[in-house]
């Protein structure tokens, strides 16, 4: 049943993606009221649950441990990179990711140490979102997802697909627990810790942003959309430099 849910979400997102030919831009139209409401919901959840957990996690761990945890989660993303580099036609990069996963999972003690970088196998992650971008699948509008935050339909599909490529997802599926829900409890626990680890790394950034912005929603939306332009390099087309569009505006306001 749990597995079915995941595919249902994936299918629903694909439908949403197909129905939204436009690209993410700052003019959201009708979506804005939904996005702002979800942003508020996420902010409240963050304030009362996620941020306190992140602060608690920081209080009981050292920098050294937190780095090991971040490395552990980064290593779990390597199999998705192996697959997606191949889908993007970069077989060499795919080999690098495979090598990194093998070396770091073993000599790097389950990925907690990045031994492979020292061997010249440098981190070069990719995911299904970038594969879709390369295949010229449009990004769709800017959306705020529950708990996950800023996204687009294409980014959300990418995230769901990369999750399925996570080895711990399959490890928990094939472990022989008696009850169905127990199969995934290990995976959900790991996912929750990963979530808290990411939030911990961003405590100062988000505090600074909310303290100094009069409209954090607009600030995050603008930064997210600008960031997306960087990965939106459709194969065979010329990448559009971001500067081109706003050079004009700079001149426009010059006396």
């Amino acid at each position: 049943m749990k597995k079915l849910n995941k595919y249902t979400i994936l299918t629903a997102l694909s439908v949403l993606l197909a129905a939204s030919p436009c690209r993410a831009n700052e003019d959201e139209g009708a979506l804005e009221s939904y996005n702002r409401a979800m942003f508020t919901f996420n902010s409240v959840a963050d304030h009362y649950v996620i941020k306190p957990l992140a602060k608690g996690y920081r209080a009981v761990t050292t920098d050294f441990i937190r780095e090991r945890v971040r490395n552990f989660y980064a290593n779990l993303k390597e199999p998705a990179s192996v697959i997606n580099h191949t889908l993007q036609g970069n077989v060499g990069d795919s080999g690098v990711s495979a090598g990194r996963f093998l070396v770091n999972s073993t000599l790097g003690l389950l990925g907690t140490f990045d031994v492979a970088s020292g061997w010249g196998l440098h981190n070069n992650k990719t995911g299904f979102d970038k594969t879709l971008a390369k295949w010229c699948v449009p990004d769709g509008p800017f959306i705020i997802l529950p708990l996950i935050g800023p996204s687009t339909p294409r980014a959300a599909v990418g995230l769901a697909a990369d999750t399925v490529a996570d080895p711990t997802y399959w490890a928990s599926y094939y472990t022989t627990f008696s009850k169905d829900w127990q199969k995934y409890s290990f995976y959900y626990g790991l996912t929750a810790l990963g979530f808290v680890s990411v939030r911990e790394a961003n405590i100062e950034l988000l505090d600074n942003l909310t303290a100094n912005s009069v409209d954090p929603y607009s600030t995050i939306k603008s930064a997210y959309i600008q960031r997306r332009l960087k990965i939106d390099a459709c194969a065979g087309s010329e990448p559009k430099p971001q500067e081109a569009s706003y050079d004009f505006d700079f001149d426009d306001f010059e006396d």
Partner: protein
Amino acid sequence: MKKLFAVFASVLFLSFQAHADINPNKAEAFVKSVTNTGIEELINADVPEAEKKARFTKLFNQDLDLDFIGKFVLGRYWRTATAKQRADFIDVYRKLNIQTWSERFNEFKGKHFEFVGTEKSKSPDQIFVNTQVPMEEGAPAVVKWRVKETDNTLRIVDIIIENVSLAQTSRSEYTSYIQKSPQGIDGLIKDLRAKLK
């Protein structure tokens, strides 16, 4: 006729001078000196926080063209703003930026900039100086500095970190705010002042 030609030629020469492209080497040397000062006198310096903030304020006011950035950031509202609103906005925007960035020095500890060339801008008096910052994990962060030359003085008018332009982001935040605020620009200035500590 000869005189007319001379006047015409000098006007042409002057206008050519005014639109002479900004020198890439000069622009790169300028950003290098700004980042070096920032790293040596702020991030790595062993001085009290108050002294760091004073040094940062000086560097910020001297090397960033806040009047120009402020104009861009207010977007179409700059045109309708009164002289007082413009001055008040630039003042509070300057203070808020100094506050925002001086809280974040420590994040740059141990980092350095590698200079990887320049890129032309559509405006002849502006140029992008490209740098990258090696990170502990993953690919280096790409940081572009938009430099503008006014009366032979170089100043930074935007910093683009991993494709995110600080000027563009502020502009989205403020124009969206003004649109929704019943008090318009005055409301924005008032609420920005409330953010100052």
